């Protein structure tokens, strides 16, 4: 961990009660959802983590808190990469949006909503992004089954064709 990173990490630890994990020289901060927006602002303004690379999530079902929302930040001058994790419970999964700090987070957060069903409070445009607007369920959750297509043979071709979803007349 570089000196600048050490400084940022200890400051954030003190102010927001973040927990630090280091794995394969990647530093991860675990912080509660209440502090995420303030912490991002602090990291951006005081510690030059100006570039938000990515927002994604992981589903740890059946563990509780079930989800982790993961942010990757980058400091251009110091070339430091920082990972931030926010644990989210399975009951009304919700995290405050960081799009006011990093406008680029908007689409990434839409993707996390689409794929995991985690709501981002205060997001200006929280619609599905890659799945159709009327899709039910959130595909990347661990309890969402992996779909498959039934194989059609001559004897049951029409039967299966009738079950397949298609646009209505």
């Amino acid at each position, binding site marked *: 961990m570089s000196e600048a990173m050490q400084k940022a990490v200890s400051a954030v630890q003190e102010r927001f009660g973040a927990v630090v994990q280091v*794995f*394969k020289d*990647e530093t*991860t901060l675990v912080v509660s959802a209440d502090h995420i927006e303030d912490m991002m602002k602090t990291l951006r303004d005081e510690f030059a983590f*100006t*570039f*938000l*690379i*990515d927002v*994604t999530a*992981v*589903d740890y079902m059946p563990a509780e808190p079930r989800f982790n929302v*993961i942010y*990757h930040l980058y400091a*251009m001058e110091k*070339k430091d*990469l920082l*990972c931030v994790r926010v644990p989210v419970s399975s009951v009304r999964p919700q995290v405050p949006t960081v799009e006011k700090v*990093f*406008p*680029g*987070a*908007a*689409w*990434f957060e839409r*993707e996390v909503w689409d*794929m995991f069903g985690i709501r981002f409070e205060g997001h*200006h*445009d929280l*619609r*599905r*992004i*890659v*799945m*159709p*607007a*009327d899709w039910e369920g959130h*595909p*990347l959750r661990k309890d*969402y089954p*992996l779909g498959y297509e039934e194989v059609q043979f001559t004897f049951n071709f029409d039967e299966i064709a009738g*079950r397949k*979803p*298609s*646009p*209505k007349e």
Partner: protein
Amino acid sequence: MADFREVTVEELRHLVSDRAMSGETMLLNMGPQHPSTHGVLRLLLELDGEIVVNCIPDIGFLHTGVEKTIESKTYAQSEVMTDRLDYLHPLGNNLVYCLAVEKLADLDVPARAQAVRVILAELTRLSSHLIWIGTSSLDLAAMSTFLYAMREREMIMDIMEMCSGSRMMTTYIRPGGLWRDTPVEFESAVRKFIDLMPKRIDEYETLLTRNPLFLDRTRGIGVISKEECIQWGISGPVIRGSGLAYDLRKARPYSGYEQYDFDVPTQTSGDIYGRYLVRVEEMRQSVRIIRQALDKLPFGPVRSSNRKYVPPPRSEIGTSMEALIHHFKLWTEGYPVPKGSVYTAVESPRGEMGVFMESDGGPKPFRCHYRSPSFANLQIMPLLTRGHFVADVVGIIGSIDIVLGDADR
């Protein structure tokens, strides 16, 4: 049978101006079936006459659920799907995936494999930029560049086929090295190509760089500042065209890029023309990197000797019991990767392509997320197009060089 619901304009009300609701401005769909949107991108344009007031990109028509499918396959099987994401840069997709697995598993990669990876990654970058220079100038009505660019791309495709047996979906880079060593003709074929390429790049430039029609369509259009790029998480030639030399090959080198001497071209104009100049210069730099890598291409193995992850050579299986067991385990169960999560990134022709991979200690990835540059770069479409003509939207899409397979995953 599922009911299909239509999305009404009411749902997009917060994104368009009030004038659209009263009918003063017009809402127009561009795409998804439109040749200049480079795939299946749908843009909802709000138009005042011919001026774009607002632009709402709609993606997801090429969503294939690769991230979900990866979770149900072993590490070796999943890699095959990564080719299909950014289909103009398949080797880079493999490379970033392998870097993530190698980082999780502490797998070593022999020097020769690293150098071949660099050569092939740069060749893929060239082929992607050739497609870009062809199609984006085709959008601006310069037909001949496209034909020339495809001619050179064919040579790269032949080299890919020579190495991996496949033109595009190669899966040639594997965790721990390469699938197999390069064939004997590889070096001479690549040399022939890089000797030819600089002249050909000059040829493209004579067609475009000082062409007044091209200049009219590209200068001062789709301007974005350096600060905005950072805010919106833009990377690749777009951010370099705005004046920031952010290139992962220099910023966080991987696969031995630190050994090679090359420049990161930048332009300060931030418009379509700036991004054009950056990409053309990048092609020259790629040739330079390939030449250096080829000159000091070391001999030796191309696969790690760690048998827990890398299958043994065929010759060993007949003589060694151990090798037979390893081979059987690797191809049936797959290899377990230590628990943890990592983020690795490579510089794709479009920007920062990253993989966030989490392992739970089993033989299948617990979560594999692709941070794709096209997805992030598409977000700035409203900023770039506002106040320009509809015809310029076409040029702007071409200049940020999106691949929808990459954006939708």
